[in-house]
């Protein structure tokens, strides 16, 4: 009996293995396959998309009013706009349409589509709508302020005091995507402007059309042969959801994907020198910072603030825990972008930190106890541990509270934290985006609930910072404007509630035969149409 049972087991195993085919290694020559965690895609309507993976997808599905092209990622150029002009007072911007743009549906793009798309963002009032409502647009006036007097012309009237350069930069954000008005309105339900339909469908004109989106599984894009840039080399782009970084690495090494985008620092190190694989490094605009809630009395003292800034082990963290995935950057506008301030005046100096604390009346920590809130994931946990250890040396007891985003953000927005270590990236490619978040706080009362601003969340309200941010936002002279932002960043390095520590360095693994996969500084500057194999 034992032999019959053994034989049966052996036969079953053989059948299982023989039935399984040898896997087809490699990806098709005309298909670009990416492995990444795309669980953050919750919808694909450009009026609402604000997550990393979703933003990458819509960059390639839609044309934007203004844009940054992969051949020069620092220069703002027209997307659907052929040319533009400003009125003398800078409050009216006239955009002339690029001719010959065709939507994926086959409908030709006109100025009416552009106007509709911008109006729609304001009327739907989803999370990123603030990018346009800051112009003075709201659902009641936007139809009058954003118009298409003819098929080739869009006229934007700005009622807020903002530089027209800022407005153009903001139009390069995801909300500046142009949707097919006719198609979208044909799916309108109960006056929703096609919102329910467009969450999971495509109304774009960009180089790729949406073929499939299976949440937490994959996205399949197919080439749009009438794209204004010409026919892309890759006929299809497939983004496979692979949550586990180790599995992403295996798939890349085997050649079953062309790029893996969530590899950890040690995995990237392991891939160095591996045949057939290359590592791409590119600056990213996300900043990691420590913020001090000004509702906590001790943290309002500038000497205590500076002491904390001197207590952080910037270089130690950068070299050990962060392993090159972040670089030291101590200003609120990321390096590599226009008007960035790249001086890093702080380095760890415990003697100075102790002296500052003593001057503030907290010699040897003065029995201080603080909490540090942060995300329950790497590298935030490790950075928090390092800060905790530094504070211990100063005599301050710090308790680390780890939470996931769904718990942490409501607490942060309710000002219930003391110290927090978090990350922030610009919403669009203009320094006002981060100046508005870090510096600008016109109303610090709890009732004001300016929860979109880091300054308000940390109860940090300085008149000079608010005024300087406002002045820079409306300055029309580019040279002056750049100088104003640099000055503001410099001042806030030593006089604010923040210790801005690091800037993300993007790294992905790529198969060596894949060329021209261009990624820019902002989270949505990802271009599939330039990829070749």
């Amino acid at each position, binding site marked *: 009996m034992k032999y019959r049972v053994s034989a049966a087991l052996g036969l079953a195993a053989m059948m299982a293995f023989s039935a399984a085919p040898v*896997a087809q290694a490699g990806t098709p020559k005309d298909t670009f396959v990416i492995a990444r965690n795309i669980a953050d895609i919750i919808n694909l309507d450009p009026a609402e998309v604000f997550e990393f993976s979703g933003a990458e997808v819509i960059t390639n599905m839609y044309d934007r009013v203004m844009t940054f092209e992969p051949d020069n990622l620092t220069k703002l150029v027209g997307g659907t706009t052929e040319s533009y002009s400003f009125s003398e007072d800078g409050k009216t911007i006239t955009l002339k349409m690029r001719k010959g743009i065709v939507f994926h549906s086959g409908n030709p793009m006109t100025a009416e589509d552009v106007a509709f798309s911008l109006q729609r963002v304001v009327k739907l009032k989803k999370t990123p709508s603030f990018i346009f409502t800051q112009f003075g647009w709201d659902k009641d006036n936007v139809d009058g302020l954003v118009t298409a007097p003819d098929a080739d012309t869009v006229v934007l009237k700005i009622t807020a005091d903002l530089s027209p350069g800022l407005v153009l930069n903001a139009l390069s954000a995801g909300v500046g995507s142009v949707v097919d008005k006719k198609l979208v309105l044909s799916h309108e339900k109960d006056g929703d402007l096609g919102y329910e339909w467009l969450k999971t469908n495509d109304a774009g004109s960009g180089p790729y059309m949406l073929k499939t989106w299976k949440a937490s599984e994959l996205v399949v894009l197919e080439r749009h042969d009438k794209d204004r840039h010409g026919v892309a080399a890759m006929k299809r782009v497939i983004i496979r959801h692979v949550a586990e970084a180790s599995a992403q690495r295996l798939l890349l090494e085997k050649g079953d994907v062309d790029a893996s985008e969530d590899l950890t620092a040690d995995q990237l190190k392991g891939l160095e020198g591996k045949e057939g694989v290359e590592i791409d490094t590119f600056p990213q605009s996300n900043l990691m910072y420590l913020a001090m809630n000004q509702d906590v009395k001790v943290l309002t003292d500038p000497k205590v603030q500076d002491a904390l800034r001197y207590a952080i082990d910037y270089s130690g963290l950068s070299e050990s825990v962060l392993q090159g995935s972040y670089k030291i950057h101590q200003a609120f506008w990321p390096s590599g972008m226009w008007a960035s301030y790249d001086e890093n005046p702080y380095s760890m100096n415990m003697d100075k930190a102790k002296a500052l604390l003593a001057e503030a009346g907290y010699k040897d920590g003065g029995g201080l106890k603080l909490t540090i809130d942060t995300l329950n994931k790497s590298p935030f946990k490790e950075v928090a541990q390092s800060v905790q250890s530094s504070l211990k040396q100063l005599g301050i007891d710090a308790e680390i509270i780890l939470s996931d985003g769904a718990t942490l953000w409501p607490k942060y927005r309710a000002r219930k934290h003391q110290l927090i270590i978090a990350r922030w990236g610009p919403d669009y490619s203009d320094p006002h985006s981060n100046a508005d978040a870090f510096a600008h706080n016109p109303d610090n009362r709890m009732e004001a609930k300016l929860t979109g601003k880091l300054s308000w969340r940390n109860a940090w309200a300085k008149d000079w910072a608010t005024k300087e941010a406002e002045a820079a936002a409306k300055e029309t002279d580019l040279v002056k404007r750049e100088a104003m932002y640099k000055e503001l960043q410099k001042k806030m390095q030593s006089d604010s509630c923040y210790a801005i520590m690091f800037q993300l360095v993007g790294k992905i693994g790529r198969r060596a035969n894949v060329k021209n996969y261009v990624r820019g500084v902002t989270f949505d500057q990802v271009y599939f149409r330039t990829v070749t194999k």
Partner: protein
Amino acid sequence: MTRKKGAGPFPPLPPFAKNLLRVVFTLALTFLGLMAVTFFIGRVLPTDPAMAAVGNRASEAVYQAKRLELGLDRPILIQFWLFLTSALQGDFGKSIMTSKPVIDDLKRFFPATLELATVATLFGVLFGVPMGVIAAVRQSKLTDHIVRVLGLIGYSVPIFWLGMVSLVVFYAKLDWLPGTGRLDIYYDGIVDHVTGVILIDSALAGEWEVFNNALGHIILPAAMLALYSLAYIARMTRSFMLDQLSQEYVLTARVKGLPERTVIWRHAFKNMLVQLITVIALSYVNLLEGSVLTETVFAWPGIGLYITNSLFNADMNAVIGGTIVIGACFIGINMLSDVLYRLVDPRAR
């Protein structure tokens, strides 16, 4: 015909109808309790579904608008009542995470888990039952020790680690099996979604290349789950078999000169079938709940990952929908077990 004194206005129900009503009432109460507990737990968790939907950057106005849209401004009992009345019409609402009706998500995620759990349980039974029987028959001998050690490994080794190691060995190094996911990209979209179980759908469509590829993809994740299942089934089978082999009727059968094979399989094994069915049913349902770690390692879009991601993002519509499906499986498999008991044990009929 005169009515009996004290009888009600309606004729008495036949016994089967009474039983049916009792079963339906119990089921309804169970599901109601399941939904209520899940719903209220979701509401007291320190996560904010509105914040999860609009994101950290949203202005207060956008956030409050979302709260109103999700009905979070209403008293909690009203929220539950509204949810319940929709759910009874088959509408579990939309998932915040996928923007799709929860029902549609479940139609995609649950079959993936069903497929994986079924194959894993089949492996577990195919190997676990004979191993358990052999171990009992050869108690304290080398075979018994090997089976018990394998069982210990199955229980103790972290499935996450084992999954990664198996990918490295069988996929990366040996190239015997394909990588993560349910299919290679070449085959995605070829077969229409009929049941959602790719092995079945591809066989129905006659797409044998797709079938082969799907089979290859399922082997590793199913083997991981099967190891745990096998360990449990083998251990319990051994225990049941030892119990039966110590009974007097077995001694009698041996003394009567029956072949050992007949004593074990026709008598001892048959007498332990009822207990074994319970064990296999429990093991199967355990796998149907979805194994988050296996699904993560192998990028398997199953219900475990769906519910877990939904929970972390306070997407309670999705969590409740998933919980109902798993609850229904639990109840269904229990009922199936009852039927099987009656088939294998005449005393239960």
